[in-house]
């Protein structure tokens, strides 16, 4: 057993300097942590808020992250899931039922899951297909574009807005607020002093949009997710307007940014690996399914989430105490040598592909996984069959310890 020493690991994974490096360079450090014994203790992430924490344990191996994710009774979400220290009342606005444990989480999850069942996603696939086709219609022959705004950002925003019934005139504002919310670590978006205030402001803007939509749909029921959310009843419980608002903050970010980032990363990877692309297009229908799993592993749009230990336990030989914080580094799990053969190679034929792009399992496994796969399948099918040529310039990466993001991606499209 590893002795419980609380000295900070010499491997820095907390500073802005560390996260300012490219994904592959960061993984050199994660690889050392994966290969070491036990777990490592790290300095807390920089915080926008006056919240002090002693540090966190880094979970970098796939197996350890799965263990924590599937044991919510030991690794709780109810005390917060942001790895950077953030007051719970702020987290609650943005994360809604992500920051809950069973059985409370189960009630909320079921209220919402009806819209995301495979059958209900299949029902909206035709709409998703039409939207994907229209995104690619606009791309054909477009010449010099920013690929992120001209393509990657569009389908997720259209899809989630239609599901929620966000009016077309409000969609851009909602998407921008969501993007800003998770880009607060990037200097471009605001100064350090303004960031904490701006974070809360963007959350409130999104939450208020959700509250307005909820009120509207209570009076005027429609055929959308928002209507089923306000009408849903599980165990005699209905969502309040404020809860619907918090859910919109979550959906606008989780449902927008993730698929958008995966699209950009996967297009770049296909462009850098023409043999992989050729293999995929040889039998697009037969190969797009497994290819998308590799897109998601490769992109890992969500880098990490946190949990708090509820009672004394042991993980990887390390004794953990109640109240300890742990960071679940999905970015590291998706490059774990013990789970993936040649993890740093983009390989569309990878099978099985047990990536943690949707989380480590357990109750918080991504609710939108089928929706994301459906969006990616339709968009890539359209792009790979209809675009003659796409050439990329240098991507402008987002400085973030939470989202693996590309802000801008210059492209020439024919």
């Amino acid at each position, binding site marked *: 057993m590893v002795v419980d020493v609380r000295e900070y690991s010499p491997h820095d994974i907390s500073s802005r300097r560390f996260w300012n490096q490219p994904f592959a360079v960061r993984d050199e450090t994660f690889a050392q942590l994966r290969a070491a014994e036990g777990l490592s203790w790290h300095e807390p992430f920089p915080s926008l808020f006056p919240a002090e924490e002693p540090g966190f344990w880094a979970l970098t191996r796939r197996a350890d992250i799965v263990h924590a994710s599937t044991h919510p009774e030991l690794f709780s979400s109810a005390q917060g899931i942001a790895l950077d220290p953030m007051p719970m009342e702020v987290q609650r606005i943005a994360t809604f039922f992500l920051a809950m444990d069973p059985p409370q989480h189960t009630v909320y*999850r079921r209220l919402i899951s009806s819209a995301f069942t495979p059958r209900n996603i299949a029902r909206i696939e035709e709409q998703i297909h039409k939207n994907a086709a229209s995104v690619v219609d606009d791309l054909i022959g477009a010449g010099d574009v920013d690929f992120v705004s001209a393509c990657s950002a569009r389908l997720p925003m259209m899809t989630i807005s239609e599901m929620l019934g966000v009016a077309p005139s409000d969609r851009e504002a909602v998407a921008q607020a969501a993007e800003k919310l998770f880009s607060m670590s990037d200097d471009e978006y605001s100064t350090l002093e303004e960031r904490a205030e701006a974070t809360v402001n963007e959350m409130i803007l999104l939450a208020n949009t959700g509250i307005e939509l909820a009120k509207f749909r209570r009076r005027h029921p429609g055929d959308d997710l928002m209507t089923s959310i306000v009408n849903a009843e599980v165990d005699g419980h209905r969502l309040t307007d404020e809860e619907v608002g918090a859910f919109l903050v979550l959906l606008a970010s989780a449902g927008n940014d993730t698929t958008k980032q995966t699209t950009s990363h996967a297009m770049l990877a296909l462009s850098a690996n023409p043999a992989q692309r050729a293999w995929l297009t040889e039998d697009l229908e037969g190969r797009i399914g497994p290819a998308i799993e590799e897109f998601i592993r490769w992109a890992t749009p969500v880098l990490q989430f946190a949990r708090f230990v509820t009672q004394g336990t042991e993980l990887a030989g390390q004794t953990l105490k109640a109240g300890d914080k742990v960071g679940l580094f999905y970015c590291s799990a998706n490059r774990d040598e013990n789970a993936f053969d040649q993890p740093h190679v983009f390989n569309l034929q990878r099978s099985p592909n047990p990536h943690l792009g949707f989380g480590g399992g*357990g109750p918080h496994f991504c609710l939108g*996984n089928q929706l994301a796969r459906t969006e990616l399948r339709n968009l890539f099918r359209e792009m790979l069959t209809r675009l003659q040529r796409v050439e990329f310039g240098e991507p402008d990466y987002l400085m973030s310890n939470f989202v693996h993001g590309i802000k801008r991606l210059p492209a020439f499209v024919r």
Partner: protein
Amino acid sequence: MRVEVDLAKCTGHGICETIAEDVFEVQDDGRVHIHGNERPESDRARMQQAVTQCPAAALKLVD
């Protein structure tokens, strides 16, 4: 061979349904319904895949 679900754990992800949509159906209340728990031996591989891939570990096979 029987496939069984623990409804206290099931959160309706529907991964099982994407593997065997004739057997598993997530209802609108977010719980999975199994159409015929008794499975023929020829269906074992598919059922095992559904059990293994369930993110909530809510499914099991009973011989």
